[in-house]
C-alpha cells in the first residue's frame, strides 16, 4: 500500500481525462491519472477511432465499386473481415500507446485499476492511495441497454461487439439511428449486409437539422437500407443463429442486431454518493467550470452530461484545469460544439437547427447543393447540401448543417466563424479557394442573402 500526494488526480484516461491531465501538467501541477482499462478511453479504443478505420475500409470499397464510372476497370472488391477488424484494432492500439508516451512525457503518474473515493480528497486505486487537492472525474459513459432488449455479445451487439464482428450478417437490424447507429448502418450496408435501421423518433439522427436528416435517410434508402422512423422494436428473441424482432407488430428475422440507443454515464462504484456528489439522470451535475456539488471535485466529458462527444470532453477538461489554477477560463458554450457523423454521406453540423433557430426569431436560411459545386462534380460525389442559418436582424451565424463528401473536415470553418462571432459580412468577404467543396459553404452564405453566384 503506497500513498501519493498530487495536486490533481484525474479519474479516467479518455480524451477528456488525458487532456485534462496534460494541461494540468503544463500548468505546473503534479498530476495522477487513474485508468481501469486502456488509455484513450472509449473514443480511442472502442469508439471514434476504430470505427473510422472500419468506415475508411467501407469508403475505399465503395469507391472501388464505382471505379468504372471514373474509367477504371477493377474487379469487384472483396473484403476479409478478420483483416478489416484487425486493422481497426491495430490503429486503436497504436494510438493508445501514443497516450502512454504522452503521460510519461508530461510526468503524469498513471494508476491502473478501479478508482474509489474515500473522501473528497482521497481516492484508492488498487494498492495505491492518492491524496489530491483536486479530483477530476472523467469516467465516461457506456452503451445503454433497453429494459426489454439487452446486448449479449452473441447476436445482440453493443458498439464494441459491432466493431469486432466475427461474421458478416446477411440481415442486420440496427436499433437506434443516432450517430453511432448510422455509422454502423453505413459500414455494414457497404460491406453487403441488408440493413434495417429502426429509430423510435420521427427522424434518424435526431440531433441534426431535420432537412439534413431527411436527405441522409433518402440516401440510405437509395443505397439499399430499410429505414423505419417513428418505430420501436418491441421484442427481440434469439433462437440459435436467428434473431426474431417484433417491429411495428410484425415479426422479422435477422442474423444479428446492433443496439445503439445512447449511452449512460459511468457514475457507479466510485463512491460518489458517499462524498455527496450530486447526480442527475445518470450524469454528474456540474457548474459552468465543471465543478460538482463537492468543492474540489470536478467532472468532465460524457459523465458530466450530453452531448457525449470526445471534443466536448477535452474542452471541458481544459476548462476544469484552468479553473483550478484560477485562470478564469471561458465556460463551454454548448451551442458551439460541432458534431460529425462519418456515414456515407457524411453529416456535420454546428449550432441551431432551422427549427430551433426559427423558434428564437426571424432567420435567413441559405442552401447550396453540391450538385452545383465544380469539385463535387469532378470527384463524382455530388450528393450533398450545405445549409446555413442566420439571425435575420443581426446577421449572426446561428447554425450550419452539411451533408456530403468531406463535410466533417469542413465544419471547423463554420466553427471558427461562430466562435469569432462573424456575421454574414465577413463570411461573404472571405475568399474560398477554387475548386473546393468548401466553396459550397461560401455559396450557402451568399444564398441566405439572395446573392448566390453559381446557382
Amino acid at each position, binding site marked *: 500500500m503506497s500513498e501519493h500526494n498530487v495536486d490533481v488526480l484525474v479519474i479516467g484516461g479518455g480524451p477528456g481525462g488525458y487532456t485534462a491531465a496534460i494541461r494540468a501538467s503544463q500548468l505546473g501541477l503534479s498530476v495522477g491519472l487513474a485508468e481501469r482499462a486502456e488509455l484513450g478511453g472509449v473514443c480511442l479504443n472502442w469508439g471514434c477511432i476504430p470505427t473510422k478505420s472500419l468506415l475508411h475500409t467501407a469508403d475505399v470499397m465503395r469507391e472501388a465499386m464505382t471505379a468504372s464510372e471514373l474509367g477504371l476497370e477493377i474487379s469487384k472488391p472483396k473484403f476479409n473481415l478478420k483483416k478489416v477488424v484487425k486493422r481497426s484494432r491495430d490503429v486503436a492500439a497504436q494510438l493508445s500507446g501514443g497516450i502512454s508516451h504522452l503521460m510519461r512525457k508530461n510526468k503524469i503518474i498513471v494508476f491502473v485499476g478501479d478508482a474509489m473515493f474515500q473522501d473528497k480528497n482521497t481516492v484508492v486505486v488498487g494498492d495505491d492511495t492518492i491524496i489530491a487537492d483536486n479530483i477530476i472525474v472523467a469516467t465516461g459513459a457506456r452503451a445503454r441497454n433497453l429494459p426489454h432488449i439487452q446486448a449479449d455479445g452473441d447476436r445482440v451487439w453493443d458498439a464494441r461487439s459491432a466493431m469486432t464482428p466475427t461474421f458478416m450478417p446477411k440481415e442486420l437490424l440496427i436499433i437506434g439511428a443516432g450517430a453511432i447507429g448510422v455509422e454502423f448502418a453505413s459500414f455494414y450496408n457497404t460491406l453487403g449486409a441488408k440493413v434495417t435501421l429502426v429509430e423510435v423518433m420521427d427522424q434518424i439522427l435526431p440531433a441534426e437539422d431535420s432537412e439534413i436528416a431527411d436527405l441522409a435517410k433518402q440516401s440510405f434508402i437509395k443505397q439499399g437500407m430499410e429505414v423505419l422512423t417513428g418505430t420501436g422494436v418491441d421484442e427481440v428473441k434469439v433462437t440459435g443463429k436467428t434473431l426474431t424482432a417484433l417491429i411495428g407488430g410484425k415479426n422479422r428475422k435477422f442474423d444479428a442486431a446492433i443496439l445503439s440507443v445512447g449511452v449512460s454515464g459511468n457514475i457507479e462504484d466510485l463512491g460518489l454518493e458517499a462524498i455527496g456528489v450530486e447526480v442527475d439522470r445518470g450524469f454528474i451535475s456540474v457548474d459552468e467550470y465543471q465543478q460538482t456539488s463537492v468543492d474540489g471535485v470536478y467532472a468532465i466529458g460524457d459523465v458530466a452530461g450530453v452531448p457525449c462527444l470526445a471534443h466536448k470532453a477535452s474542452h471541458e477538461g481544459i476548462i476544469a484545469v484552468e479553473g483550478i489554477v484560477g485562470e*478564469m477560463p*471561458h465556460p463551454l458554450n454548448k451551442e458551439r460544439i460541432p458534431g460529425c457523423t462519418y456515414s456515407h454521406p457524411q453529416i456535420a453540423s454546428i449550432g441551431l437547427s432551422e427549427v430551433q433557430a426559427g423558434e428564437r426569431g426571424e432567420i435567413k436560411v441559405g442552401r447550396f447543393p453540391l450538385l452545383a459545386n465544380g469539385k463535387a462534380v469532378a470527384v463524382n460525389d455530388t450528393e450533398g447540401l450545405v445549409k446555413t442559418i442566420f439571425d435575420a436582424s*443581426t*446577421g*449572426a451565424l446561428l447554425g450550419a448543417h452539411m451533408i456530403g463528401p468531406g463535410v466533417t473536415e469542413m465544419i471547423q470553418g463554420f466553427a471558427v466563424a461562430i466562435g*469569432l*462571432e*462573424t*456575421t454574414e*459580412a*465577413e463570411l461573404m*468577404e472571405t475568399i474560398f479557394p477554387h475548386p473546393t467543396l468548401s466553396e459550397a459553404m461560401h455559396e450557402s452564405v451568399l444564398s441566405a442573402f439572395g446573392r448566390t453566384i453559381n446557382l
Partner: protein
Amino acid sequence: MPKEIYLVKVGMSMTEGMVSEWFVQDGSQVKKGELVYALETEKVNLDVDADYSGTVKHLVEVGVTLEPGDVVGYIFETGEDIPDTLAGAPAAASAETKREAEATAPVPAVAAAPETVSASVAASDPVVSQDGHIKSSPAARRLAKELGVDYTRVAGSGPGGRIVEADVQAVSQSDAVVPAAPAEIATGPEPKASPLAKRLASERGIDIRSIQGTGPGGRIVQSDIENAAVTGVSTGAAAVSGPRAGERIPVKGMRKTIASRMHHSLQESAQLTMDMEVNMDDVVKMRTSLVEEWANEGVKPTYTDIVIKAVAKALRAHPMMNSQFLGSEIALMTEINVGMAVALPEGLIVPVVRNADQLPIKELARETSRLAIAAREGALGLDDYAGGTFTVTALGMYGVDSFTPIINEPQTGIMGVNRIFDGVEWNGDKPVKTKKMNLSLTWDHRAVDGAPAAEYLVEVRNLLQSPYRLLV
C-alpha cells in the same frame, strides 16, 4: 500653405470640447509659443499655444462643440494669401455629418499635420494607442512596424474602417505621419470586439468603448452587448406623459462624463459598501496640534488629509484594494495614488495625490490644498487627475453619517469620509463622550471579498485610532 490649428485632445476620455476663448483675434498676428485659444472640455480647461508664427484666421466661433482633432483655425505664414473668410467652416455641424464628410473626402489638408499638433496632444497620443486595440489587420500592423509608421494614426479604409496594409503603405509613401481622420481621434481606439458585437452595438446605439469584454483575451462578444443596458435614453419621453419638464438642461461636458462614468461603474462592477465607526479622539487632538504647529507655514491639514494618509498607508499592506480588475486578470498597482473628490459647481472632479503613502502629512496637506485650488480655478494639469489607484470622497462637512460612494473605475475601492460627531465609548458602565466618525468603504467584490475588504477597513480604523503611526 496655412497650418491648421486643431482642437487638441487632452486625455483619453475626451470626446468633445470647444474653443471657449480666442486669445488672438481673427486676422491678428501670433508668435510661436504664444497662447492662441482656450480649450474647454468635460474635464479640464487648457490654454493652447501656437506652434507657428503668422496670421490667425478663425474657422470656428467660441462655444461650438467639436471633436478633438477638428480644425478650429489656420495660421498663415508671412507672404501667404489670406482670405477674408474661410470656406467650409463647419459652424455647428453635428458629429454625424462631419463623419460622413470625412468618409467621402478622407484626404483633405491633413498632410502637414504632425508639426501642428501641439505638445499636449503629442503627450496624450501614446496613451490612446497603449489602450490596445485599433481595428487593423495583422498584416497592417506588421507592415507598420517594419516601416516605422504609427498605425494608430492611420485612417482605415477596410471593412468597418479596419486599417489594412494598403493604408499603412499609403501613409508611408506620402512620408507623413497622418493623424487619423478627426473622427478617428475622437472615437479613440476601438476595443477588440467580434464583428457581431460591433454590429449589435452600433445598431443599438451602444458605445462599444464603454463595454468590458468577457470573451477570449477580453474581446467584446455578443453577450457583452446584450448585457449592457442601452445607454441612449430618450430625452423626449418625459414630454409625452407624466409631469411636464420646466427648464431642460442639456447633459453635456462634465455632467455627461460623470453620468456615463458613474452609470458604467455601477453596471460593470460588483460594488457594495460597508460602514465602520472610528474613534476620532486622537485624530482630533493630533490635527489641532498640527494646525497650530504649522500655522506660520500656512499649512492646515484637514481631516480628509489625515484619512487620505491612513487610507494610503493601509493600502500598502492590502495591495488587492489597490488593484484594477481587468476581466481576465487583476492588476496590482505599484503606486498608491489617491484621488480626492472635489465638488465644483459644474460637477465633480477627482484630482490625484501621487504616492500618497510616501508623502508626510505636511506635504500631503500642501498637495491637496494645491489640487483643490487648481481644481476650482480650472487649472489642473493632465498629471493632476491621471493615474489614481484609489479614491477618497468626503461628505462629512454636510453632516452626512453614511453613504455609498461609487467606485471611480477602474479602481477597486473608494472611501467615503463622514462627519465627526459626539459619540459614546463605554468605560465600564460609564458612557464617555468621544469623537466618532463613520468610514464608508465601497469596494469591488469582483476583486476583493468581504472579509479582506473588512480587514482593510479595520486597518484604516486602527491607523486613525493611533494616528501617531501616520507621522512616522
